[in-house]
């Protein structure tokens, strides 16, 4: 096994710029900052942010138009119920953001000329990956934070500040952050596999949103809890706000026939998300390390 040592070249003769060894932590910070600058200027980020703001603003506008009294009745007079419903699409925004910022995060190095700029820097690939992963997490959470801000603003408007369960909102946002990490791990792994950036984005969306949702429905029909599904685990983000949370619901379909619906508990959600994080992030680092610039 080879061990990387810290470069020691520090200073040449007069006139040559002094250079200090760059630690992995410093390199990670540098790469995160530059990647973040890149992400926040992309049409993907601006478009997704504009879309989330538009949808949230429209939802609020319709609710305001319906009136405070109507909304309160609809939401059973509970701010947490309101928030749980409002934030029901958090998983979708995160999956879209993960696909946009993670689906091609690694494949760009091998399918475009980006790698010829970054992969010749004296930085380990795992640190390059860490910088991109951190930047992708931050931009995704920025989108989620805007969505939560709209939801919380609506809750304050309709139910008043004192009625808001700030602790539950924070808990839900924490779960959203964990879901983001897990979804990005899957997206990064896809991007380490799939060479085409566009295909990487598409495969990530199909896997995380369509694939898991369909599979979840199928196994529930068979009476099996979809404990393997990240989308299922993501339900915990809204469930934590739901005071009437039910883990298992049995819906009668006819004589001796039942359809069972599961909803992930908070701890179940946390464990599933951590599982995805622990499996897919190291897998993407391994695959990225092995990739060659054959193009």
């Amino acid at each position, binding site marked *: 096994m*080879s061990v*990387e040592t810290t470069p020691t070249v*520090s200073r040449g003769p007069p006139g040559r710029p002094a250079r200090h060894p*760059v630690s992995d932590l410093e390199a990670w910070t540098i790469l995160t900052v530059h990647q973040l600058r890149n992400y926040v200027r992309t049409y993907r980020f601006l478009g997704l942010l504009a879309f989330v703001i538009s949808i949230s603003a429209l939802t609020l506008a319709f609710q305001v138009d319906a009136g405070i009294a109507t909304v309160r009745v609809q939401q059973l007079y509970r701010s947490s119920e309101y928030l749980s419903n409002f934030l029901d699409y958090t998983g979708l925004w995160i999956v879209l953001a993960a696909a946009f910022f993670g689906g091609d995060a690694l494949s760009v190095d091998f399918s475009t000329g*980006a790698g010829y700029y970054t992969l010749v*820097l*004296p*930085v380990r690939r795992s640190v390059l990956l860490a910088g991109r992963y951190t930047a992708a997490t931050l931009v995704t959470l920025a989108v989620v934070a805007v969505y939560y801000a709209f939801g919380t603003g609506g809750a304050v408007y309709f139910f008043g500040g004192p009625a808001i369960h700030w602790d539950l909102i924070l808990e839900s946002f924490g779960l959203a952050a964990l879901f983001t990490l897990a979804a990005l791990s899957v997206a990064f792994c896809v991007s380490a596999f799939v060479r085409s950036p566009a295909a990487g984005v598409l495969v990530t969306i199909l896997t995380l949103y369509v694939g898991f949702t369909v599979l979840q429905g199928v196994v529930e029909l068979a009476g099996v809890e979809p404990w393997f599904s990240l989308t299922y685990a993501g339900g915990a983000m809204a469930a934590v706000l739901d005071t009437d949370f039910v883990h298992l619901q049995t819906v009668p379909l006819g004589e001796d026939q039942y359809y069972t619906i599961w909803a992930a508990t908070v701890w179940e959600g946390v464990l599933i998300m951590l599982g995805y994080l622990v499996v897919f992030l190291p897998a993407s680092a391994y695959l990225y390390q092995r990739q060659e*610039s054959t193009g």
Partner: protein
Amino acid sequence: MTMGSFEASHLTKRFGTAPPSVQDLSFRFDGAGAIGYVGPNGAGKTTTLKLLVGLLRPTKGRVALNGVDPVANRRRALWDVGAVIETPEPYPTLTVHESLDLVGRARGLSTQDIDREIDRTNGLLHLPRLGHRIGWLSKGQRQRVVLAAALLGDPSVLLLDEPTSGLDPAERVLVRGLLNRLKQDHLILMSSHQMLEVTEVCDRALFLDHGRLVLESRVDELESRRRLRDVLVQFLRPVPWERSRELAHLTTTIRPAGERGWRVTFEGTDETRAAVLEACRAIAPVVEFESATLAVEDAYLDVIPTDRPAPVGTTS
């Protein structure tokens, strides 16, 4: 200055079941100077450069940059190396300054030194406006930015894959001049299809064909390798074509070249060349007598089998 080095030892790279792109390639260079890496398309030039910086892993053999294997210890191997391989694309949304800042920081420069280095490379390469985004730049402007990135921090080894590709003639002259200055105290490996560039910049040349090294030579020694020499003779005034027969005993072919010139091909040494010049002077005053082809180009055509185009307007 810490002098750089790079080496390949019995280097072989194979992709799948295809014939090896690079086969049993061995070379080692250190100190300062420029080495031209020439060969036809698909000869394995870019593959070698990618292997040197660890973008590819060798199937057999090993490479080292400044004595360090880039696959085993990437950070240390690339620490004192600037590389422009294929067509690097910095993030299109970042500005020129931000793109260079990224490289400067990764190479351990302080903020002050990064600004100084950007100013230095700006002076050398006439960079586009530093506030412009990479995505707005032309191919030539982007190429100058990636060359500047390779030079940031003044690394001792420069690996350049067709460094003047995409540049206009004025930019090519600029870069050739820059490389000529840099080779005084840097080690440069430069692949190129431009034989003029190799002649003007490089001290040595490596000729690659089908992944194998077929010739390694000092560029100034290539002249003596020539079997066939081709010179352009310009007389002071037009000379009757019949008088070309006076050179028949010295030459292989003679062709008219313009109103007052002949293109003369002959086999032999510098003595034969001197005799041809004397014979031409005996016919009419000579105002120019110069090689019609480059020694590097002739060596290329000599060692690398190719369908050489038939000369136009050949006469006996």
